[in-house]
């Protein structure tokens, strides 16, 4: 990446949206850099769709301002905004052919006739629908309709493309294909994509920056890897991937390290970025960061022991659910790296678990 910071194409400043007494989005500040593939991720009802609809202009914020490319947009109607949207239902016009659908946005905004034809052709080529110009939407598959919706939005050359749950209506195989396709398109057209999704895998695999939302607030904005490896709160830790949480007390903290007393583990020193306050905290460890031993190991690092409660075999990995001595249940991802390992595990078997303190995350919220 270049050293100069890319200017933000979208800026939200203190944006609040209330529907009656319900607050959908609360005092949100957000900057989305130009040419980003940005994901708004959160459970349903977290306000991500409301945020997207405010960017498109279908809702106006109760408070705060929305700037797109430096222009104040919060009171501008949707047809005068330099953004276009791909709807969850695709909203392809059923009475128009593919070509008419794609040409529609150009026609209503007064683009000269001579220019419309070539632009429609280019847009359809970009989403690989060349040859289907004369089809009606009811003669197409869901995946093809989505491509029409994409072409129809991209042909307008928006500054920002908004995508509302773009893959939720597709089956698994098509979804994976479309993920790659969207990333390719974003690179090709070089405009900012903002995608709303509740599917964390979708967000992690496509976006270069992700904002995790809950109850109308953005909890963390980070690149995928950072979000996964360094969640800043219990919600993000639990929402992105699986996580084992241990109650802990911060006994002491100095620069770079925290002394903890972890329930079921004992005293532990973990590296930290920010000096945590003393008192209750949560220690989080990913299932794949836990190592599983079938005999008490000699080496340091084994900190927990318990009985195998349940096994879920996935081929490359096994998910092992271990009931600890204190009653807590821990999930371990066991890599079936050699052919014999999985066969050695059975429910009721005593096992020992270990992890590197550097792989544990201290959450203080």
């Amino acid at each position, binding site marked *: 990446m270049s050293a100069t910071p890319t200017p933000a194409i979208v800026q939200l400043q203190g944006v609040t949206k209330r529907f009656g007494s319900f607050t959908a989005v609360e005092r949100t500040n957000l900057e989305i850099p130009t040419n980003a593939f940005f994901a708004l991720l959160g459970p349903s009802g977290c306000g991500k769709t409301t945020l997207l609809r405010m960017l498109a202009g279908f809702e106006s914020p109760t408070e705060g301002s929305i700037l797109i490319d430096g222009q104040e947009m919060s009171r501008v109607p949707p047809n005068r905004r330099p953004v*276009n*949207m791909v709807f969850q*239902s695709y*909203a392809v016009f059923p009475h128009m052919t593919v070509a008419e659908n794609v040409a529609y946005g150009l026609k209503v905004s007064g683009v000269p006739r001579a220019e419309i034809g070539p632009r429609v052709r280019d847009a359809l080529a970009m989403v690989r629908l060349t040859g289907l110009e004369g089809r009606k939407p009811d003669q197409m598959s869901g995946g093809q309709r989505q491509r029409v919706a994409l072409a129809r939005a991209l042909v307008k050359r928006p500054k920002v493309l908004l995508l509302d749950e773009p893959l939720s209506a597709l089956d698994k195989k098509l979804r994976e294909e479309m993920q790659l396709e969207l990333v390719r398109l974003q690179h090709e057209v070089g405009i900012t994509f903002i995608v709303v999704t509740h599917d964390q895998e979708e967000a992690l695999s496509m976006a270069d920056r992700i904002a995790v939302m809950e109850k109308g607030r953005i909890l963390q904005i980070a690149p995928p890897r950072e979000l996964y490896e360094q969640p800043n709160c219990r919600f993000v830790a639990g929402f992105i991937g699986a996580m084992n949480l241990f109650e802990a007390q911060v006994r002491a903290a100095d620069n770079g390290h925290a002394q903890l007393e972890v329930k079921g583990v004992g005293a532990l020193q973990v590296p930290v970025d920010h000096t945590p306050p003393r008192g209750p905290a949560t220690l989080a460890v990913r299932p794949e960061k836990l190592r599983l031993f079938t005999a008490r190991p000699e080496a340091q690092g084994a900190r927990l022991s318990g009985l195998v409660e349940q096994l879920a075999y996935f081929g490359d990995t096994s998910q092992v659910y271990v009931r600890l001595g204190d009653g807590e249940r821990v999930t371990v991802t066991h890599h079936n790296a050699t052919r014999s390992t999985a066969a050695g595990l059975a429910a009721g078997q005593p096992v020992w678990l270990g992890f590197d303190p550097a792989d544990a995350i201290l959450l203080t919220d």
Partner: protein
Amino acid sequence: MADRPGPLDYLRRWWLRGWILAVVVFLYAPIVCLVVFSFNDSRRNIVWQGFTLDYYGRALRNASLIEAFTNSLVVALVATVLSTIIGALLALALWRFRFVGRSAVEAGSALPIVIPEICMGVALLVFFTRVGWPTGLVWPLNLSSVIFSHVAFAFPFVTVVVRARMEGFDRSLEEASKDLGASEWQTFWNVTLPYMKPGLIAGALLAMTLSLDDFVITFFTSGPETLTFPVKVYSMVRFGATPEVNAASTVLIVVTILLTIIAIRLQSPAKQEG
């Protein structure tokens, strides 16, 4: 495989065939009779005497019958256009907006459908005398009270049909249109209206049929110089059903069927193109 009859196999059952035959006979026998006897060469019109086109000629030369026929067509045409516009606008308002008293408006708009026609007729008659609706105007203005009445009972049917059509409309289509740069009006014209079209045509067709053959309400609201076809036929039948009435009725049936065919063709232009 042949143990249980498929849906179409039932047509081979004798009782089902009998049933279908009975339905067809009871539905269409009267109409066939009407048409056949319009060619009957007899004044009394009870026994078949021989083929003639005389009564079509007589019906054509019957000035008051032709006048009533023209009145009916004018009333039906104007009332259809007006009730389609009013009905569709009401349907759109009910579908689109939430406002205080919406359910009251909705229920109230359906009243003309459920109120007995005779009450509606009397009510309209009382209304016209009460407000002093101008009478004795020149044609076609003297039809205004009949047209008004027909619009009053026909537009709720249009509302019901259009409303039902709009229930299936995906609101994100309108949003998509605006998102792509269309104004409110462009969106209505290019996206909402095309979707409404089948509902509009069906509603208009319904209104037209209702208007064309309405007797009760028209009987109460038309003046002596503004007879419509059904009212005229009624007055003719009182002096005996001559083949002339049959002939005129047959023409009306043909007109109605033609209008229906046109409407159905308009409704599915896509299939004809493909």
